[in-house]
């Protein structure tokens, strides 16, 4: 098992996982849409030039080519910014890959507001909703380097296609090597009986961890879950949280409609209607700014999460 604690960026964890898989499986190939230097797949190109294809600024064709390669027995990883991987080539990923039962791992970087200075044009808020419509597709949004590495390896083993929602710059080291990380199973980061907070992705889990501290100082004890796999939803854990706390706050770096919050609410509505609230981007489009500004602008800060959690207890 690889230790990722020395890595400096989330993109390094993504590429470490893909390169290790490429070392082990010669059918692993990689496709880029002129964003090689952004993800750092340059290393793949240098190591395996015959298995690396920069398709240029043509994401729809890239995904179609990946589908064709899959039908020849290859396992492609294809990369672009999340806005393009979801909105620009959705029909190709839906039909040529998934409807045709091919196997492609599609990376969508810079989830939610983390595109920062690239601004609103580069902020995917709806990618989770779009990808959740695709039968049998697995969606992950890892919150740290080690889980990112482990989950990508497990995606390969799953035999399914996937959408990998992940940041590129900066890094979080949350889980030491050896931590049990399982695709489809949320990780409980803290336990408390007053309410449960379900967070997805690096930005939201980081803020939620701080929010739990703030709440503890106020005498409120929250369970916190890192829901790194958005689809399939860990319904067993969701039901347990509802049963044990009766209050659930879902924090996601994206939009409510079709997102994780709606997925949790939809499941609980069937089996155990539960009081819930949500932290998400609401009805806003993206906008430019640094992360500190954006967290405040979208009410994503630990203080915002703590305030919503407290309100949910009333």
């Amino acid at each position, binding site marked *: 098992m690889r230790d990722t604690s020395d890595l400096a960026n989330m993109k390094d964890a993504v590429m470490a996982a893909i390169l290790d898989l490429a070392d082990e499986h010669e059918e692993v190939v990689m496709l880029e849409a002129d964003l090689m230097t952004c993800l750092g797949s340059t290393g793949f190109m240098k190591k395996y030039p015959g298995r690396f294809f920069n398709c240029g600024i*043509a994401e*729809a064709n890239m995904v179609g*080519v990946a589908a*064709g*390669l899959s*039908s*020849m027995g290859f396992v492609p990883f294809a990369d672009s910014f999340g806005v393009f991987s979801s909105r620009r080539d959705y029909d190709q990923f839906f039909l040529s890959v998934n409807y045709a*039962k091919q196997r492609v791992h599609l990376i969508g970087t810079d989830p939610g507001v983390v595109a920062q200075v690239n601004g609103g044009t580069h902020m995917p808020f709806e990618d989770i909703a779009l990808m959740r419509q695709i039968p049998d597709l697995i969606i992950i949004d890892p919150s740290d380097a080690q889980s990112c590495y482990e989950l990508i390896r497990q995606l390969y083993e799953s035999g399914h296609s996937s959408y990998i929602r992940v940041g590129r710059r900066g890094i979080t080291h949350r889980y030491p090597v050896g931590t049990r990380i399982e695709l489809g199973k949320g990780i409980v980061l803290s336990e408390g009986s007053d309410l449960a907070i379900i967070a997805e992705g690096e930005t939201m889990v980081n803020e939620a961890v701080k929010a739990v501290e703030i709440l503890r100082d106020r005498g409120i004890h929250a369970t916190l879950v890192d829901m790194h796999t958005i689809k399939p939803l860990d319904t067993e854990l969701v039901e347990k949280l509802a049963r044990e706390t009766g209050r659930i706050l879902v924090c996601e770096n994206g939009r409510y409609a079709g997102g994780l919050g709606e997925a949790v609410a939809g499941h609980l509505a069937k089996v155990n209607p539960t009081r819930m609230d949500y932290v998400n981007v609401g009805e806003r489009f993206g906008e430019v700014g640094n992360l500190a500004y954006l967290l405040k602008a979208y009410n994503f800060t630990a203080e915002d999460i703590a305030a919503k959690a407290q309100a949910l207890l009333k």
Partner: protein
Amino acid sequence: MLDLQTVEILEKKAREIRISTIHEIAHLGKGHIGGAMSIVEILTYLYYHEMNIDPENPKMEGRDRFVCSKGHAGPSVYATLASRGYFPQEWLLTLNKGGTNLPSHCDMTKTPGIDFTTGSLGQGASAAAGIALGQKLKGEKSFTYLIVGDGESQEGQVWEMAEFASTRKLGNLIAFTDFNRMQLDGYTKDVINMDNIDTRWLGFNWHVQRINGHSFEQIDYAVQQAKAACDRPSMIICDTVKSQGYFPGVGVTANHSMAVSQEDEKAAIAALEGGSL
């Protein structure tokens, strides 16, 4: 070069495939007959003369592959596959019925012999490029054959594929444009003019030829030329007649998908059997 006897055999097969296609669609009462009929010679040539395939083993390693990117031409592709023995002829009468293995648009998960799923225009082109790339990666000497429609070529994805395939020098990708000058809403010249199709592909640095898409001699010559041009992908632009061989549809602007009555079926089949083509 094809000898006269081979041409006669292929023409006979094409006639049988056309009759099956008309019967298949007439049994349902309606279907995409126009664009299915215009590619019958290309299909017949590929499946009866050119491609390295084994109907007994549809997934044979190292085989040549075929992608019908204009997926709505499924009925004539199915008639060809049935004729070649991939599945029983009786399946043709299940076209588009619930639970069928022969859906309106080509589906690799349902139909033996279909190499890729198509139906959203333009997508089969990129998949074919990926397949051709995969054949090269595996060190195969095989070819990928692709049919795109002239109307379909209004899709931007076709041209994304064009620039990719020429950059990657996919000499094992041999494509045909079914240039029947019509699309769902009428003539291409009235919707989006495709008359400069030759120069478009030339501009993307493809090996380009233009032929009569209903002539086996010309299809054969062009395919052999395309195979020899191994440093770049090939586009063979085929002048065709939409609904060729189903005369009630020829020249009818609504022939993309139209009702096929049993009377018209009988008349069209009688004409074919009488040697109309």
